[in-house]
């Protein structure tokens, strides 16, 4: 649904668009001597009404989510591959496509993570041209959330916020805490009171204010919404959400640039709220719209979820955009366990528009996916990465991704963040006393099978 439902989509409200001009802000404004801002307004994704560039996130008319819009004609005249490549290798080299008005001030080192040519994994999956976009090594907190937080906190500063906050159970909390600390912003992280201690530690260490809230998930969720509305805090995933969400696009821009300005034929993205998938779609669309990619071929974006919480893939497979909430997600992939995905409706539409598919996988397949990626490419992904690999494997096996077409897998976070999920699946070390004889007895034929290099 727009969780909210096959709801009334944009067309139903189109007549309002022409009547709405009272809040239309000025278009482009000077950014600095070096850069211009091309960020023009916030716009309701449902009815198209425009809003000023403030800390707001919901359309007052129909409660639709607001999204940043840009002057693409001006970007097209201004931007070039050469200009981008002349800049430091961070996510900010695509600043014209981000909703800020001045120079970035938070998370200056974030992004431009490796795009790894994954030949060994490709061989195992039966495909020729495979890449891993590895945000498991994103700076500073080892997940793609650093991208969205960098944009949200930069915009928070521009809007004059002294305090930033989020409600999170993991990666987002860590990233807000770390980036706020480095920027000297006061921060609050709201968490369910029963969150595991190691996850809390990864936020506490940065000196943030961690508030544990007792009660069922739904009540905690509503309280966080109330707090965000009541106090003058920049809540990154509530009142700063239109800015925050745009940061995900940089993952898509980087993929395209790292492929020498080609859009991969297939991209597989894991889905929680579905936002990342929609923003990678938006990034691919924007590079075409602004001429950075010329003569593009068609591309397909596929979504992946764990079977224990798969409201978006279920809707997609049924051919509907009506997303039925999952009341009690049951999966080891906690970071994707969102039963009512806020951007699910839009994720379905992105997949449909690109002739993509949706796939889901069991927890066992998630573990297998994590191990396969680690053992073939030396990349340790969090459980969400296991979902991406496992679902890509199914899409290849089912012939949806042909073996001779390019494929990028988006890995969103480091495996150490969810190490407990795989702890009992990696075996144990073999033990030996400090004796060469015992060592040789233990390894036996393994030693014979490994010839000594000539140069040794």
């Amino acid at each position, binding site marked *: 649904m727009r969780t909210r439902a096959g*709801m009334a989509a944009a067309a139903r409200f189109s007549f309002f668009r022409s009547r709405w001009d009272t809040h239309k802000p000025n278009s482009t404004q000077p950014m600095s001597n070096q850069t211009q801002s091309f960020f023009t307004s916030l716009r309701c994704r449902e009815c198209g009404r425009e809003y000023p560039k403030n800390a707001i996130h919901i359309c007052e008319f129909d409660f639709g989510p607001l999204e940043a819009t840009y002057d693409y004609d001006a970007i097209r005249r201004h931007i070039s591959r050469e200009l981008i490549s002349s800049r430091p290798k961070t996510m900010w080299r695509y600043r014209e496509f981000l909703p800020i008005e001045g120079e970035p001030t938070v998370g200056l080192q974030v992004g431009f993570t490796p795009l790894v040519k994954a030949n060994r994994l490709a061989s195992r999956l039966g495909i020729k041209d495979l890449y891993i976009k590895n945000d498991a090594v994103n700076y500073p907190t080892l997940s793609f959330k650093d991208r969205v937080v960098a944009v949200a906190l930069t915009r928070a500063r521009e809007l004059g916020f002294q305090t930033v906050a989020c409600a999170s159970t993991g990666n987002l909390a860590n990233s807000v805490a770390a980036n706020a600390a480095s920027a000297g912003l006061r921060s609050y992280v709201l968490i369910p009171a029963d969150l595991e201690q190691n996850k809390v530690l990864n936020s506490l260490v940065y000196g943030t204010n961690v508030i544990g809230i007792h009660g069922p998930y739904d009540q905690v969720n509503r309280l966080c919404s109330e707090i965000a509305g009541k106090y003058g805090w920049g809540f990154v995933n509530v009142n700063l959400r239109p800015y925050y969400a745009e940061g995900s696009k940089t993952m898509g821009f980087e993929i395209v640039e790292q492929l020498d300005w080609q859009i991969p034929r297939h991209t597989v993205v894991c889905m929680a709220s579905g936002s990342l998938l929609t923003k990678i779609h938006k990034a691919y669309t924007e590079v075409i719209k602004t001429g950075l990619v010329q003569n593009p071929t068609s591309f397909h974006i596929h979504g992946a979820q764990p079977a224990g919480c798969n409201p978006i893939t279920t809707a997609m497979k049924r051919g509907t955009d009506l997303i039925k909430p999952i009341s009690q997600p049951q999966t080891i992939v906690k970071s994707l366990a969102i039963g009512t995905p806020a951007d699910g409706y839009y994720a379905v539409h992105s997949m449909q528009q690109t002739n993509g598919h949706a796939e889901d996988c069991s927890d066992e397949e998630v573990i297998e996916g994590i191990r396969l990626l680690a053992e073939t490419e030396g990349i340790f992904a969090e459980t969400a990465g296991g979902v991406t690999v496992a679902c890509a494997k199914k899409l290849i096996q089912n012939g949806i991704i042909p073996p001779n077409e390019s494929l990028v897998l988006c890995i969103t976070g480091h495996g150490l963040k969810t190490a407990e999920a795989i702890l009992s699946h990696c075996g144990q070390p073999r033990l030996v006393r400090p004796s060469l004889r015992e060592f040789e007895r233990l390894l036996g034929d393994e030693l014979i099978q490994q010839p000594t290099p000539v140069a040794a």
Partner: protein
Amino acid sequence: MAKQTSRYWLMFPAKLITRPIIYELGHKFPIVTNIRQASVNSEVGIVSLELEGEREDIKAAVAWLEELGVKVEPVEINTIES
């Protein structure tokens, strides 16, 4: 006490779709209900609803809805992310 306005998405399961729950809500509690979007099919009903009233009355109204089996989410849907 000052009145406040709260905004929610309500999701009705199939068994409750034919019941006039929002009408009942407005009579059972001293709050003003204002529907801003709605979509109903045979499987689920989804309504975006603004409630205006005393904070305690709104809380009681939400608790009543949940007791009936209606899922009540803030307009942001999920404020708690991973």
